[in-house]
């Protein structure tokens, strides 16, 4: 049940003002986002995208938001085709359902760039490039962070880990889990993942899941969460139960995760900036239009961040 019409309207108004003066040779790039306002990442992404587009005089951007609604996103893609934009950037609301719309844009000769979360493979033929984070690598890096810490603590042979994954069925959740599950036995073959349960990207849900884990398992040395928001929920549960010494590793470093790292409660995460994400998407579109050779999977780097190197990174804004 999603009634988020309001968002689209506001986003569309913002788009009009963002478009500004149109020069004759300006590249007209349309973007339809997933659901601005639902979380800080998407909100920051939109602001960064508009800022980057405004800073570039050659760009005439049309910024739309689907409000999480597949039907609205499909209509928006059709609108953008009607407006004869030069390129379309899409943050899919649903990896399967948007394929027909993407194909339509492709047939109209408009290159489509997918941002943040990729569409399903069946639609790859109609997409010029995917710009976003490599979630499998993120999961693998989280495994490495955890393993390095265990090795340093001398418990790499005995440690037991629980995993709190993202929303079931969501590509990002599946890929991060896969990256983590595949990489951990390679770097730390004796560490066992005793159980994985989803926290649905939700801090409260994750806290409940962790409470159950704490009751069920006397020995938990590490917790891997699909993002820091859930990681902090798990941390709260451990704190409330008085279980110290657990190594928490997340992904998508949130401000709360950064603060928990600064406080020494949370070990590490993956630094993924919505600003980088937005700028990478715009740059990919510009490169495609300029005829630059762009790889199909055009990942932007998402480095490891731990208590040791967090000084190199500014606190996330979300």
């Amino acid at each position, binding site marked *: *049940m*999603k*009634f*988020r019409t*309001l*968002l689209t309207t506001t986003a569309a108004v913002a788009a009009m003002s963002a478009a500004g003066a149109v020069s004759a040779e300006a590249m007209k790039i349309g973007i339809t986002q997933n659901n*601005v*306002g*639902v*979380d*800080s990442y*998407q*909100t920051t992404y939109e602001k960064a995208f508009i800022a980057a587009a405004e800073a570039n005089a050659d760009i005439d951007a049309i910024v739309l938001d689907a409000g999480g609604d597949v039907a609205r996103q499909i209509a928006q893609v059709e609108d953008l085709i009607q407006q004869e934009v030069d390129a379309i950037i899409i943050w899919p609301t649903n990896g399967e359902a948007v394929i027909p719309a993407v194909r339509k844009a492709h047939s109209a000769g408009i290159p489509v760039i997918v941002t943040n979360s990729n569409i399903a493979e069946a639609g790859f033929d109609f997409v010029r490039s995917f710009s976003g984070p490599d979630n499998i690598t993120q999961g693998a890096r989280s495994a490495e962070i955890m393993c390095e810490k265990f090795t340093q603590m001398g418990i790499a042979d005995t440690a037991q880990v629980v995993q709190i994954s993202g929303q*079931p069925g969501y590509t990002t959740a599946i890929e991060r889990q896969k990256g983590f599950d595949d990489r951990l036995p390679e770097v730390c073959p004796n560490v066992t993942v005793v*159980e994985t*349960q*989803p926290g649905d990207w*939700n*801090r*409260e849900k994750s*806290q*409940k*899941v962790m*409470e*159950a*884990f704490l*009751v*069920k398992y006397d020995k938990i040395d590490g917790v891997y969460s699909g993002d820091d*928001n859930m990681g*902090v*929920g798990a941390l*709260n549960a451990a704190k*409330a*139960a008085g279980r110290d010494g657990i190594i928490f590793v997340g992904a998508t470093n*949130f*401000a*709360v995760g950064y603060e928990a790292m600064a406080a020494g409660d949370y070990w590490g995460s993956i630094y993924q900036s919505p600003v980088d994400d937005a700028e990478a998407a715009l740059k990919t579109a510009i490169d495609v239009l300029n005829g630059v050779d762009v790889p199909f999977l055009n990942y932007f780097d998402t480095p490891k961040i731990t208590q040791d190197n967090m000084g190199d990174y500014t606190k996330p804004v*979300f």
Partner: protein
Amino acid sequence: MTALTRQDIGRLLARQGILFAFVAFMVAFTLANGRFLAPDNVMGVIRSSAILGVMALGVTFVVISGNLDLSVGSMMSFSTIVVLDLHDKIGPALAIPAMFALTMCLGALIGFLVGYLRLNSLIVTLGMLSAIYGLTLTWSGGKNMDIADKAGTWFGVFGQSSVLGVPVPILMFGGLAVVLAFMLAKTPFGRKVYAVGGNGVAATFSGIPRARIVFLCYVLSSFCVATAGLMQASRSMGSQNTVGQGLELSVLAAVILGGASLMGGSGTIFKTVIGVLILGFIQNGLLLVGLQFYVQYVVTWVIIILAVWLDIAVKRGRLWSPIA
């Protein structure tokens, strides 16, 4: 001289069928995992059910009065975000009453629309579900809301501290349940709520101001939602905008599971509390059993249907009862 005759037992079962269903599930889960009834687990489950529970207490009044409230999840997100935001701006002592006032304004608005303009409560609250979500996002600008100085505030007491070993959320849930149970069962207001939901026409002829009773039920419900929002905010000291999303259905499930009729006129606070606990213990029990996640949705549904069936079957005195 036996204290209980067969009929007595039958009558007891019929009145408290859901309680027996609850006990049956508790036994089943305990057999599956011995730690299920460990004191810290039980305490943990009740504590995390408390937020849902407090909301269900208010919705019980609304449902008994013959209406629905689908906006409570969205309203809980609103109160959580508002109190967290105001906490850093005007301090907790002012933020809490301000949040209660704002949330209860929303409840009053719904109560006005349903009670005085006699609009369908399903449509009003379904609309409010999205409208309040929009309001929340407008307030926060879509950003997660976090208390900046988590260590330097007493705001955490409602969600995190304990009194004599009992977590405060449980005390708040229990306290509110006792007060509202008394209000519903023993005061003129409570009896009017039953009357309005049971037979509105008769209530009117008895001189009961139906509009005002419905209005007050929604205000009471929003007070409970504000309390839940306070507990939620205090517990995690930060929140997403979607924190309460989907809770309206869990709340309704708990109230109905407790045996309140969707048609109005029946239900009790005690049974709603049992409904809340059943939902909470199912969720926790399935986690402890370690069932694969995708199966959990299905199993949860099966258990709820079983509970409702047990409740009804015991009331009717037979398991098989086709529509005649």
